[in-house]
């Protein structure tokens, strides 16, 4: 029997339907792997009992010839940002420690209805604010990849636990969420595939809100095909989220045709910033060459407002966060720290419950929304957002897809970049523009840095054209032939 921890989602689907192994065997193999990998601190809550129960139900369905589809019996990890009925949901924050939702988020419900088996809730940056998974109240996650210097690496963030779980073969796939790069950047750091769908594809209902106009759930997997399969069962219109879109959901997997002849691939000049490292620059150009060899036509394009995307994001996202996080007041759920007055109770609770980065972003958001500054900051940022979106619209008149690097660097050692918030924010420099424009994008592992750490390439497509993303992603993936494994799997760390 194949090693059940090394299967891709597509392989596991086919193996389950052939009867090579059962969903219970798959779940057990992954639960064991999670137990053995506790030093990576990937999960906040492991739900072994739920996993075995759902796996058993899946096996019974299959025996009765009532199997549900591709996800039936597949063991997955869920970012602890998604509310799960009866299972603690913390968003990586002390303020939600012990919070047990009485309802299920739409995205996790959709996957549950499709037969997926939840292994547990993954660690993440607190309230999804971070690029290294170092702001979690539940501790830093370690990247399964390490370099020769023996220093533990961050897994990226905010979906760092999900990325590490998939990379370390603790789960076949994981749900992540992406606000400014929180699926794609950790995917790049952990050498896996991470995909952010078009804003509105997946319902946000039951997802702990960070910045509502940007937040989007998406799949994190080891192959492009697996991401396509998983997205099919995550996406869909939901009456409970007024920003979810009633768009037809195509069969994303069948979009992976292997042919990209005649497609025009935009290469944004502005992404070639001065700071871009040689190794990343080479990797990017190799990606361009490979797509060209496969029959696509590279086209130099311009997105003139690229450099303003990150500062724009750091007005919009904290503004929305400061409103969304106003609900954590110690009254109805979560942590409460007593005070003599109601206001004092609020202030004590929020001081103790939120970590440093979350407090900082709430402060930024409160300031940019406060009387006298609203027009200068918030409205200004929303105007910039219009300009950034129109850059993309104009460029997409001439190209079908864009290729860029995912992140400006590979995974850095835990403890670095901690002193200067702006240095940390720069991790999302290549992912934030597509977020602000609501566009679908995917990161796939493309090569190794000089230090032997994974680097990702990033494709961006038109709104609701995830099919082109998967199609080009599939071709790029097979021509890149990335097959390196993290040191953790080689038993080296």
């Amino acid at each position: 029997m194949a090693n059940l921890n090394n299967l891709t989602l597509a392989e596991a689907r086919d193996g389950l339907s052939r009867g090579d192994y059962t969903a219970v065997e798959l779940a057990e193999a992954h639960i064991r792997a999670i137990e053995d990998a506790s030093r990576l601190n990937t999960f906040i809550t492991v739900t072994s009992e739920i996993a075995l129960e759902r796996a058993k139900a899946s096996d019974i369905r299959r025996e009765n010839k009532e199997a549900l589809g591709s996800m039936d019996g597949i063991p997955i990890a869920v970012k602890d940002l998604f509310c799960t009925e009866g299972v603690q949901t913390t968003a990586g924050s002390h303020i939600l420690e012990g919070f047990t939702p009485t309802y299920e988020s739409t995205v996790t419900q959709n996957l549950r209805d499709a037969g997926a088996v939840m292994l547990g809730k993954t660690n993440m940056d607190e309230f999804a604010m971070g690029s290294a998974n170092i702001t979690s109240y539940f501790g830093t996650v370690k990247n399964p990849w390490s370099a020769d210097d023996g220093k533990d690496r961050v897994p990226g963030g905010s979906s760092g636990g999900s990325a590490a779980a998939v990379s370390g073969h603790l789960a076949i796939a994981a749900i992540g969420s992406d606000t400014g790069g929180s699926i794609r950047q950790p995917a790049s750091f952990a050498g896996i595939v991470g995909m952010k769908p078009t804003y509105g594809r997946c319902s946000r209902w039951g997802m702990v809100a960070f910045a509502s106009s940007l937040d989007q759930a998406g799949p994190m997997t080891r192959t492009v095909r697996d991401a396509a399969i998983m997205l099919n069962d995550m996406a869909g219109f939901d009456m409970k989220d007024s920003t979810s879109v009633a768009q037809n959901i195509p069969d994303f997997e069948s979009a992976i045709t292997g042919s990209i002849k005649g497609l025009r691939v935009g290469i944004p000049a502005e992404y070639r910033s001065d700071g871009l490292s040689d190794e990343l620059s080479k990797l990017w150009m190799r990606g361009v060459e490979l797509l060209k060899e496969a029959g696509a036509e590279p086209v130099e394009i311009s997105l003139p407002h690229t450099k303003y995307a990150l500062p724009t994001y750091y007005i919009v996202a904290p503004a929305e966060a400061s409103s969304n996080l106003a609900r954590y007041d110690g009254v109805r759920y979560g942590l409460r720290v007593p005070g003599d007055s109601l206001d004092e109770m609020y202030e004590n609770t929020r001081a103790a419950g939120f970590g440093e980065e979350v407090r900082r972003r709430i402060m930024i958001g409160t300031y940019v929304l406060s009387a006298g500054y609203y027009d200068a900051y918030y409205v200004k940022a929303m105007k910039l957002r219009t300009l950034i979106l129109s850059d993309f619209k104009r460029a997409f008149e001439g190209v079908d897809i864009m290729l860029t690097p995912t992140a400006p660097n590979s995974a850095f050692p835990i403890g670095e970049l901690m002193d200067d918030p702006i240095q940390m924010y720069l991790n999302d420099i290549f992912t934030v523009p597509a977020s602000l424009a609501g566009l679908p994008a995917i990161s796939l592992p493309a090569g190794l840095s000089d230090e032997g750490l994974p680097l990702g390439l990033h494709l961006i497509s038109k709104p609701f054209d995830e099919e082109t993303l998967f199609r080009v992603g599939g071709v790029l993936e097979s021509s890149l032939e990335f097959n390196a494994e993290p040191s953790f799997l080689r038993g080296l760390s």
Partner: protein
Amino acid sequence: MDKTTVKDIAKLARIKITGDEVERLADDLTNIFDWIEQLKEVDTDNIEPMTSVIDMVMPSRIDEVNDGNDVDRVLQNAPNRPADGQNFYTVPKVIE
């Protein structure tokens, strides 16, 4: 950004901050807003602020009760829930 402003914002945000933290936040926020200042280079006089990334009509439904009367579930995570089984959230006294 001076310390008074930082204290004012913290008050608005209902977050208690103390001595050292005021200073550190003042420095951090000053750096972040200095960096954000570059947006001023862009002329946005005739640009409409974005309201939504996707052109869409807000979906609507018939306005009818489809949920509710679920006190236990609503109060399940409430801190300091009264022991006598009363269905309230408890807070410090607001009116003397």
